[in-house]
C-alpha cells in the first residue's frame, strides 16, 4: 500500500529516468481510493504559503492542486495577461548606427510602468490615438561634443554629451484625460538605465513612441512576467542512516543546506535532511554506489513551488490573482458555451 501511495503522490528520480511523472489519481483508477472531486476536501487540502514577495519577484508554495491547473496559471501568466508595450515608432530622425527597424525592435522590448487594466485593447482598424488605449512617449536626443571634456581621456561618456541614450530620456506625452488620470510617476519605463542606442556627435534620434495593450502570445514584449514557472517540492529520503565521512560526502552531493549533520548520541555525525526545498535535483548522490541504495530522491506531485518574476508593471501577487481571475472567466465561458449548446 505504501508503494501505491508513493506512485500516487511522488515522482521518483532514478539514475537515468523519472518514474511516475503523470498523475493517475482520476476517479476509479485505484481501488480503495476515492478520487472523486470533492470541493470541501479540495478546500481543506489546498494551501498557499508565500515564502517571499516584493515588488518584482515572488515565491510561494501551492499545495494540493493538480499539475494541469498549476500549469494553466503558468501559461496564463506568460501568454495571456495583458501589459503595455511600445508597438509603433514614428521616426522623424534617426542618424544613429542602428537601422530604424532594429531601433524600433529594441524600444518594443522596454518594460513599461503602466497599469494595463486602465487601458482597453486597441481596435486594429482604428488609427486614432485615443486616451484609453494608447500611451505616447517622445524620445528626442542629440549627441554633442562636451566643451568641458578633459582632453586626455577617451571615455565617450565624458567626451560627449548624450553619448548613450537610456530609457530615462523617454518623455511621456499625456493625451486627453491622461494628464489628470495618471500621475507622472505612474507612467514611464520601469528602469531608467536601459541602454537603447549609443550616439556620437552629430547623431540624433527623434522618435514618437506609441504604446498599446497586448498579450504575450502575440509578442513576448507584452508578457508581464520575465518568467512564471514552478517546480515540484523535492523530497529526499535517507533509507539507511549515514554517518561521518559518508555523511559529509552526502552533504556535498546536494545544494548547501539541504543535508545537515547531526551529532549522534554515540559521538557520530549523522546526516539528516533539513531543507529539501533548496535542492535543485542534480541527482549527484545517485552517482555513488554507496548512496544508491540508501538515498531516495522524490518530488511531491501536488506541491508546486511557484515563482513569478514580474517585468515591473504589476506586482507579482496581483499578476497571480489576475491569472486566477482569467482562468475563472475562461471556465465561466466554457460553462456558458456548454449550457448554450445544451439549450440549443
Amino acid at each position, binding site marked *: 500500500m505504501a508503494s501505491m501511495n508513493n506512485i500516487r503522490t511522488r*515522482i521518483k*528520480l532514478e539514475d*537515468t*529516468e*523519472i*518514474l511516475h*511523472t*503523470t*498523475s493517475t489519481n482520476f476517479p476509479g483508477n485505484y481501488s480503495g481510493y476515492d478520487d472523486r472531486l470533492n470541493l470541501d476536501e479540495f478546500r481543506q487540502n489546498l494551501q498557499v504559503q508565500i515564502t517571499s514577495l516584493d515588488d518584482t519577484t515572488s515565491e510561494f508554495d501551492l499545495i494540493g492542486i493538480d*499539475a*494541469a491547473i*498549476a*500549469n*494553466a496559471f*503558468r*501559461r496564463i501568466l*506568460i*501568454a495571456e495577461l495583458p501589459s503595455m508595450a511600445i508597438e509603433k515608432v514614428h*521616426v522623424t530622425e534617426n542618424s544613429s*548606427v542602428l*537601422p*530604424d*527597424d*532594429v531601433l524600433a*525592435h529594441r524600444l518594443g*522590448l522596454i518594460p513599461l510602468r503602466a497599469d494595463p487594466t486602465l487601458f482597453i485593447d486597441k481596435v486594429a482598424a482604428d488609427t486614432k490615438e485615443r486616451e484609453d488605449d494608447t500611451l505616447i512617449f517622445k524620445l528626442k536626443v542629440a549627441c554633442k561634443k562636451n566643451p568641458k571634456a578633459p582632453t586626455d581621456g577617451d571615455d565617450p561618456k565624458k567626451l560627449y554629451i548624450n553619448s548613450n541614450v537610456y530609457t530615462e530620456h523617454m518623455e511621456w506625452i499625456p493625451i486627453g484625460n491622461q494628464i489628470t488620470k495618471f500621475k507622472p510617476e505612474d507612467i514611464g519605463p520601469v528602469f531608467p538605465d536601459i541602454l537603447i542606442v549609443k550616439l556620437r556627435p552629430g547623431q540624433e534620434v527623434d522618435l514618437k513612441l506609441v504604446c498599446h495593450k497586448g498579450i*504575450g*502570445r502575440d*509578442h*513576448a*514584449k507584452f*508578457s508581464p512576467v520575465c*518568467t*512564471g*514557472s*514552478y*517546480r*515540484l517540492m523535492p523530497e529526499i529520503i535517507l533509507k539507511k542512516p549515514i554517518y561521518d565521512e559518508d555523511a559529509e560526502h552526502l552533504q556535498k552531493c*546536494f*545544494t548547501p543546506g539541504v543535508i545537515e549533520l547531526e551529532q549522534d548520541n554515540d559521538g557520530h555525525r549523522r546526516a539528516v535532511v533539513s531543507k529539501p526545498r533548496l*535542492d*535543485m*535535483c*542534480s*541527482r*549527484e548522490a545517485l*552517482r555513488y554506489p554507496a548512496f544508491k541504495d540508501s538515498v531516495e530522491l522524490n*518530488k511531491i506531485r501536488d506541491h508546486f513551488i511557484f*515563482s513569478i*518574476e514580474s517585468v515591473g508593471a504589476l506586482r507579482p501577487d496581483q499578476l497571480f490573482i489576475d491569472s486566477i481571475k482569467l482562468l475563472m472567466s475562461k471556465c465561466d465561458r466554457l460553462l456558458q458555451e456548454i449550457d448554450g449548446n445544451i439549450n440549443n
Partner: protein
Amino acid sequence: MGVQKNKTLDSYDAIEDIDQLAAPVKTIEDKWKLVPAFLQIKGLVKQHLDSFDYFVNTEIKKIMLANQEILIESDPSFYMRYLNIEVLSPSIEEGYNIVRPITPHECRLRDMSYSAPISVDIEYIRGKERVIRKGLIIGRLPIMLRSCKCVLYEKNEAEMAKMRECPLDPGGYFITRGTERVILIQEQISKNRMLIEKDSKDRFQCTVTSTTQQTKTKTAVYESKGRYFLAHNSLTDDIPIVIIFKAYGIQSDQEIVELVGYEDHIVNSFSASIEECHRLGIFTQMQALKYISTRMKSSTKQFASAQYANRNRIDEARELLAHIILAHVPVKVIEYNYKLQAVYTAIMVRRVIQAQLGHVNVDDRDYYGNKRLELAGQLIALLFEDLLKRFNGDLQKVANKIIPRQRASQFDVVKHIRPDIITNGLVIAISTGNWTIKRFKMERHGVTHVLSRLSYVAGIGMMTMIQSQFEKTRKVSGPRSLQPSQWGMLCPSDTPEGEGCGLVKNLALMTHITTDIEEKPLIRLAQNLGIEDITMMNGEEIYAENMYIVMLNGNIIGATNKPKKLIDSIRFLRRKGYLSEFISVYTLKKQRVINISSDSGRLCRPYIIVMKGQPRVTSQHIQELTLGQKTFIDFLRQGLVEYLDVNEEGDSNIAVYEKDVNKETTHLEIEPFTLLGACAGLIPYPHHNQSPRNTYQCAMGKQAMGAIGYNQSQRCDTLLYLLVYPQRHLVKTRTIELINLEKLPAGQNAIVGVMSYSGYDIEDALILNKASLDRGFGRCIVYKKQVVSMKRYPNQTCDKIKGPLINIDTKKPKWEHEVLDMDGIVGVGEIVENKQVLVNKYTPSSTTMTLAEQQSSATAAGNVFAEPEDKETPLIYRNPVPACIEKVMLTSNHEDMFIVKLLTRQTRRPEIGDKFSSRHGQKGVCGLIVQQEDMPFNDYGMCPDIIMNPHGYPSRMTIGKLIELLGGKAGVLEGKFHYGTAFGGDKIVDLSKVLIDRGFNYLGKDVLTSGLTGEPLQSYIFFGPIFYQKLKHMVQDKMHARARGPRSILTRQPTEGRSRDGGLRLGEMERDCLIGYGASMLILERLMISSDQFQVDVCNQCGLFGYNGWCQYCKSSSDVATIKIPYACKLLFQELQSMNIVPRISLKTQI
C-alpha cells in the same frame, strides 16, 4: 593528451632529486603564446603581402633590368634605356593633371580600381642628343591592400577608422572596378627539379621542367629497348642520349660512361646506348650537332633565326642546347662550355637507371615537398613582364616607323608612351581572372575570385585558399587525398565537398610561404664552406662513395665529401641569422645529394629547436615573451625557433609533445592546434568529432551570418547579410582569439534542449521558441545594392532622371512613384513595395543620331518631324517583400558619367524553413516555431531557444557538440568563457565539476517539465547553451510559385527559374512515371495544353503546314486540317525545313 602530459609532470617531480639529467623534458608552460607572437609579425595573409611586397620592391626592378633597352633596326644610334622603376603610392587622376591620393574605401564605393602609378626614369636619344627623363608614368599597378605600398600600411586603428577601413580586415586582396578580388594561391609542381616517374608506356623517365625568365620547357630522359633517349618539345624525334653528350662536347665514350657512373650495373645498362651511337656513325661534336639540327622543329628554328639572323643550323643546334633544353642550367655561352649540362644530363640518366634497377623509388608527385605555391606577387610579376615586353615592343615599332621618315619635329619617344597597355592589362587580368602570358603560352582562367564577404571567416578562408592546377573533372584520388607531408602545412579539414574535394586546400594557421632569396651569396658561401667545382671532376670522383652532389634550387653547384659539415654549417649560420631563415637544406641519402633551397613558393612553418634532448625554448623565454621583452623575431635570431620547409621536415625528428622528446629529437612542435586552418580552428573540440563533420563545418562557417567588419555600415556590397545581435562564442578556441573572430562573431549562443518535440523535428529540423525570436534571436539584416549608371551617348545625349509623375486630379504622384523624391530618386528611409520605381530614369530614344540628323532623315522620308520622346528605363524594386531604403549614393567615375547606388534593407526574423547550424557540421532548418508557454522548462523556469532532435547524434558522432554544451553550461554558471581548443581545451571532468558545484547534474541533464501538460518529462534532458550559426539560406529568398506567367519568346514555353517567375518543370523522369501509370491525359495536359499548345493547319496531301485553311504547296484547301501541337514541335519542323529536311505529317481520321 592532457592526462599524459600530467603524468610526465608527476613522474618528473618524483625523480627530480635523484637525477636531474635523466629527467624527462619539462613542459614549457604557455608555449602556445608563440602562436600569437608569430601571427603578430606574420599575420594571416602575410604570405600574400610578402609576395606582393617582394614584387613591388625587388622583382619589378629585376624585370626592368631584364628588359632594359629598346633598340631599333632603322636607326642604330637610337636607344631607350630604363634607369629606374618605382611604384608610387595609390592615387587617382580626376580629370587632367589633377591627381590626389585615394583610399581603398573610396575605390569600393566609386567602382574604381585601387592602383598606383608605376614611374620610370629613362635615358634615350632625341634627335642627336641624349636625354634623361625622370618620373614618367608607364602604367598603373593595382595595389594589394595592406601591402607596403598601400595607404593602410602600418596604420593604427584610429587612422584606419578615418579612412573608413576595418582594422580587423586582413587585406591581401585587390580592388578593381570597385570589386574586391583575391588572387588565389596556385599550387604547382616545383620547377627545375628532377622527377623520376613512370610514363604512359610504363617506362621510367626522368623529367625536368626548366623555367627561366624567358622560357619554360620540359626535358625528359627515358629508356626504350635498353637504350636511353632525350625527349623535348622542340625536337621532332627523341635523340639518343649519347648523341646529346657528344653534342655537349664530350666525345670520348669512356668519359660519357664515367659521367653516368662507373659502377658495373650502370655501365651494363648504359652500353647499348653507346653502341647505338656508333651504329649511327656519330663520333664528333659536329656530327652530333648536325644530327640534332636536322631534328629541330621549324618553330624553334624560327625562334632562333629571328634573334640571330645569319647563323647556320649548327649554331642553331648549339643555341638549342644552351638555352632551350635544360634551360635553367647555366652555360658559359661564349666558349660554349656544356660541362655542367653534361653532368646534369648524366645524373638524369643515372637516376633512370637506378630507378630501373630498383635502387631508388619513383618520386611521388603528390609529395608536398615537390610542390610550389604561386602567390599574387609572382603571378603579377609574370603578367607585368609580359605587358612590359608588349609595351616596349610597341614603342620599338613606333620608333622604327617614325624615325626613318625625317620630319620637322624630332622624334620624342616620351610622347608615344601609352600607359593604357600596362594599366588595362593588369586591371583586366585581375578583374576577370584570365591570366594570359604570351611568352609561356600560358592561359589560365579563374585565377582571381571575388572576395566573399558573407562573413568574416569567409573572407579569411578565401585568403588562405589554395587552388590546384589539376583538372577538377578528373577522377583521380592521388592529388585529392591527404598526403602525410601536408601535416601542419595544410588544414586537413578545410576542403570543399564535391568536385573540388582535395584539390582546393587551405593553409594551416602557422604556415608561411617563402619568397625568392638571392642565390649568388649562397653559392659563394657554399664554395667557402669547401664544395668542389663539379666541372673539374670526372665521373669516378663525382660518384665516389662519400661524395655528395650539392644542388641549389635544382642546379648543381658542386660536390663535397663532408656532407654533414656542410649541412651543419648552413643550419648554424641560418640559426645565427647570417642566412635568411627561409633557406632550407636537406639530403637525399640514396642519390647522395644535398639540396639547398632558396626559391619561392615553399611551404614552411616554425618549430622549437631541440638540442641534446632539451628544447631550446624554456618557460623563462615564454615569460619574457609575455612581458613583451621578446618578440618572435628574437626567438628566430637567438636560434630558439626556426622555420622548416616540407623537405627539411622530412630530415628532422619532430616531437609533438615534450614527453616525446628523446635523444634523436631535433625539433618540438609549438602547438598542435596550429595544424588546423582558420576555418577549422573555430570548431570547439574538433578532435572529438568524426572528421567529415569538421569538413562540413568548414564549409558552413563561411555561410554563417554575423558581423563582417567594423566598417560594415559604410560598405555598399551587392549582398550583405548581418546578424542584429551577434554574440561571442561561449566555448571558444585559441584560434578564435587569434583570428579576432570574437570581435566579429557570426552566431548566437542558443539554449538547446536535446529532445523530441512534436513531429516537426524529424530530419534535423529544429524547433524554435517564439519568445526568443521576439526578443531578437536569429534576427538578421539583409542589404542589397542596386546601381543605376547614367551614360553619355555618341550623339551628345545622355540619360536623364526625371521627377515623379503627378496625377493631375489628385495632385499626388502615381502609386509607382510614391516613394520618389522630387529629384526622381527614391528617398532614404522610404519603404518600397514590389514594382515601385526606385530611380525614374529615361534614356534618349536614339543614341546614335543627333537631333538635326533625325530631323533631316524624317523630312527626307516625307514625315513630319516630332521631337522623339525619351524611353522610360526606370529601376524598379522587384521583391514581394517590401524593403527600406538604407542609403542613396551619387557619385561618378571614369567609365560612366554618374552612378546612383541604392542600398535596400530588410530586417528578417527567423521563419519556418530558415537554415541554422551548430559549429559541428550539424545543419537543420526550422521546422516549427513554438510559443514560449508550450516549451518545456526546467526548475529555474528557463525554456530552450532551440529544441534539437537527439537522432542527430548517433550517426554523426559529433561528441564535440556534447562537450561544447557542457563547456557552455559551465561557462554560463561561472561567468567565464571556456576553451575547446583542438587537442586541448578544458577537460570534461573539470566542466562536470563546475556543474556539480552549482547544483546541476554532472552530465548536463536537467529535469524538464512539459509546457503542455505541466507534468515532468519522463527522461532527463541534455540542456544547455550551444553556439548556433544562422546560415544565409532563407526561405524568403527561395519561395516561389506560379500559376500563369511569362513564357519564353522562342518556344512559347513557360520560362525557367525563380528570377523569371518560371514554371516548375515536369521533367522527363516525372513524365516516365506518368507514362508508367498510364495517365495519358495528364501528360497531354502538362506537356502541351498547359505549356505551349498551338494550332496549325496541316495539309494531308503534302503533309506540310498550311495557313488559314490553305496549303500553299498544293495550292488547294481541299485537304487542310487544323490540329493542336506543341509550339516547340512546330518550331522544330520549320527549323528542319530550313536545313532541307522535310518532315511531313500524315493525318488519319479519328476512329
